[in-house]
């Protein structure tokens, strides 16, 4: 079939382009599964401990909303309950991003045009990217099965658990293959697939928490992995649901791909204004146009996150208050009331998530530059620093806005529940904003790379991953304080209790400012990236 000609070469091209990206993603998942599996066994090894967590799952709907329903009472089954849904979302996210990257993004950039002018058939880009992502997911499934079995988990269940992850990845890869046909913009294709993912998660949360609406979860692919029932009498036929839907979505994607013109989408873009609005005349206004979509998406996400964490906060006292040992453990993690400790913990996680936004916003500088879109601006009367600052504003103030939104919503939801809106909004906003300086250090690091080592700018992501791992695994692996201190997030003081001190915050802000200034200085002195 000529439409598929060249698929093999495109697979090789994709593997070559992703020779770092794919292994890093896979290793990251493997490390996460490995470390959570090794930590899990000790946490719930007695029937009493398991009975207590199971009763909490039963009584607190926020648990079900985030993690889903648990189907078994063994430690293995509880592990699958706790990690299946969350890891599954990230596997799906990875898969959809990679598919878009090799289909619509290539087409939009015009690089695929070169390819398509050659001996490559029109279905080859979609086919090759799906094959690559399917392969990556199967590899992941094999690795996860191996790790879990090795960690002493039951084999059949481990296979079901791993299969659930891989099938989520495969299904959302296919969905991205479809959204890539619909719009002309890769960013928009990603956003659409991401919205589908978010919507299925919400649908599943709704179904799992509402009496009588349980059937809703069966409509949502994010619920299916749990319904494979790993370690709890596996229901293998659910795999057929994944495959059936993937097949239907895939066929639609292929039909659309065959029917549409090269470079075109399904929906013709609406025409824009014939003239630039009077406000569109500064680098900042341009940066706003380019960055606002990302910011809006994140604000939506943070309203959602804040609501979930606020809802869970209401259960914290119930859950741990009844369990003095657990309360003691949590207290050791920080100072202040149980809820304050919980807020600090949650916000520490939220800060890492906000860093993703901040790095994305800062990296826009580099993608504008390499896309040769900085050149026309810098060839006008706009100086380099002014241009760079116009995007930096988003990387610096965006996280503040997101933390404010997340903190407010969280305080509001929890405050409403305990009838103390005024007090709780203040507390949670305080513990969210206190995270900012650590986020800014990462922003500054990204800018420093942009100024001096622009080709290595992806190292900003690596730094974030290192900080995440230090924060998550450091205590489990009992790393030394010196190692933990590498992460700026280690230095964020707890807001609860009297021990709060602003000194580390001032230091972090100072470091971030120096990094940013150095990055701008480096950018002023270096060559702009050019084609050729």
């Amino acid at each position, binding site marked *: 079939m000529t439409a598929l000609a060249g698929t093999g070469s495109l697979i090789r091209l994709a593997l070559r382009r992703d020779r770092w990206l794919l292994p890093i993603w896979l290793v990251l998942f493997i490390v996460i599964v490995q470390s959570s599996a090794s930590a899990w066994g000790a946490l719930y090894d007695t029937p009493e401990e398991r009975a207590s967590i199971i009763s909490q799952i039963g009584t607190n709907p926020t648990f079900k909303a985030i993690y889903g329903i648990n189907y078994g009472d063994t430690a293995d089954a509880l592990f699958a309950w706790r990690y299946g849904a969350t890891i599954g979302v990230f596997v799906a996210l990875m898969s959809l991003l990679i598919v878009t990257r090799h289909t619509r993004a290539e087409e939009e950039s015009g690089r695929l045009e070169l390819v398509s002018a050659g001996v490559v058939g029109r279905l080859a880009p979609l086919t090759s990217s799906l094959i690559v992502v399917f392969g990556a997911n199967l590899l992941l499934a094999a690795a996860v099965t191996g790790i879990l079995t090795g960690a002493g988990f039951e084999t059949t269940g481990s296979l079901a658990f791993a299969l659930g992850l891989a099938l989520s990845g495969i299904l959302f890869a296919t969905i991205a293959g479809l959204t890539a046909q619909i719009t002309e913009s890769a960013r928009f294709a990603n956003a659409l697939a991401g919205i589908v993912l978010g919507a299925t998660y919400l649908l599943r949360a709704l179904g799992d928490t509402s009496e009588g609406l349980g059937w809703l979860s069966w409509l949502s692919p994010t619920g299916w992995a749990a319904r494979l029932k790993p370690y709890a009498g596996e229901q293998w036929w659910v795999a057929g649901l994944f495959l059936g839907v993937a097949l239907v979505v895939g066929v639609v994607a292929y039909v659309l791909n065959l029917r549409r013109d090269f470079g075109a989408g399904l929906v013709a873009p609406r025409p*824009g204004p*014939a003239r630039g609005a009077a406000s569109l005349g500064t680098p900042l206004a341009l940066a706003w146009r380019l960055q606002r979509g990302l910011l809006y998406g994140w604000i939506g996400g943070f309203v959602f996150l804040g609501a979930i964490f606020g809802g869970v906060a209401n259960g914290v006292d119930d859950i741990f208050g009844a369990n003095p040992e657990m309360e003691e453990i949590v207290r050791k993690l920080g100072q202040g009331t149980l809820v304050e400790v919980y807020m600090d913990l949650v916000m520490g996680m939220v800060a890492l998530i906000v860093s993703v936004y901040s790095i994305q916003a800062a990296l826009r500088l580099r993608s504008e530059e390499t896309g040769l879109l900085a050149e026309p601006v*810098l060839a006008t009367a706009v100086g380099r620093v002014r241009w760079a600052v116009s995007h930096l504003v988003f990387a610096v103030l965006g996280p503040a806005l997101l933390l404010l939104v997340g903190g407010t919503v969280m305080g509001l939801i929890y405050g409403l529940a305990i009838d103390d809106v005024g007090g709780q909004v203040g507390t949670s906003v305080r513990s969210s904003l206190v995270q900012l300086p650590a986020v800014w250090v990462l922003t500054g690091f990204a800018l420093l790379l942009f100024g001096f080592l622009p080709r290595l700018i992806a190292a900003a992501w690596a730094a974030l991953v290192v900080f995440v791992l230090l924060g998550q695994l450091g205590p489990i692996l009992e790393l030394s304080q010196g190692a933990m201190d590498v992460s700026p997030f280690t230095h964020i003081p707890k807001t609860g209790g009297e021990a709060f001190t602003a000194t580390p915050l001032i230091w972090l802000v100072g470091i971030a400012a120096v990094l940013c200034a150095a990055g701008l200085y480096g950018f002023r002195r270096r*060559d702009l990236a*050019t084609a050729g």
Partner: protein
Amino acid sequence: MDTAISVSGVHKHFGRTHALDGLDLSVATGEVHGFLGPNGAGKSTTIRVLLGLLRADSGTATLLGGDPWRDATTLHRRLAYVSGDVTLWPGLSGGEIIDLLGRLRGGLNKARRDELIERFELDPRKKARTYSKGNRQKVGLIAALASDVELLLLDEPTSGLDPLMEAIFQDCIKEEKEGGRTVLLSSHILAEVESLCDRVSIIRNGRTVETGTLSDLRHLTRTSIAAELAVRPTGLDALSGVHDLVVDGHNVKFEVDTHELDAALKAVTSFGVRSLTSQPPTLEELFLRHYEDELNGGRTA
């Protein structure tokens, strides 16, 4: 001030690539200067150095009396730039981009903008994502031509334009010239250069190899001569400026440098001319000679 651009001895390396190797360039105020050279000769690099986007390793460059690196922002108010591959923000409409770039430069002439949009037949409401290559170039050209600037830096600006639009572009540049603006035009289209440029610089491997007016350059080209003579000619190969001589009995064919034409013809007529054809020099030939040398690994002409 009568020199708009003056570049001398500029070097620029990209890793091991020696992109500019002591380049010289001088553009007088008010002239349209053609900038020619094979692919990879260093034209775009030169223009980017002049824009302060790249920093020269050594040598001096002056632009509108200022330093292109240090005074970039102030100089950019007085010039407009169009690259050979205009890139646009996919989500903005053509009209928005034209206005934006004009404003970032310090303002644009609204009436001229509308007139240019009409002449180039651009639909300014379309999102940039949907523009073809030619339409992207039009957006860049309109944004540049509609601003009141002293200097236009155009780097192969008409790549992708159809012949009709090419003609309109040439009309526009002639108007700019009448308006007293200076233009540096890098181009591959010889007809464009012949019809627009007062002077031309040809560069190769990052070095200027010819510079002068078009008639100066024509002078550097060769005329081909074919003649049938009364006797078998001798000694023609000793004449200076004669190339590719072929003597076949009474017939002779050769090429001669245009400035040696007189001496060569005198020598030929001394053998009694029965018939003679000559082919006038073309710029094409001159450029091809420089470009071919490039292909043949820099063999000198």
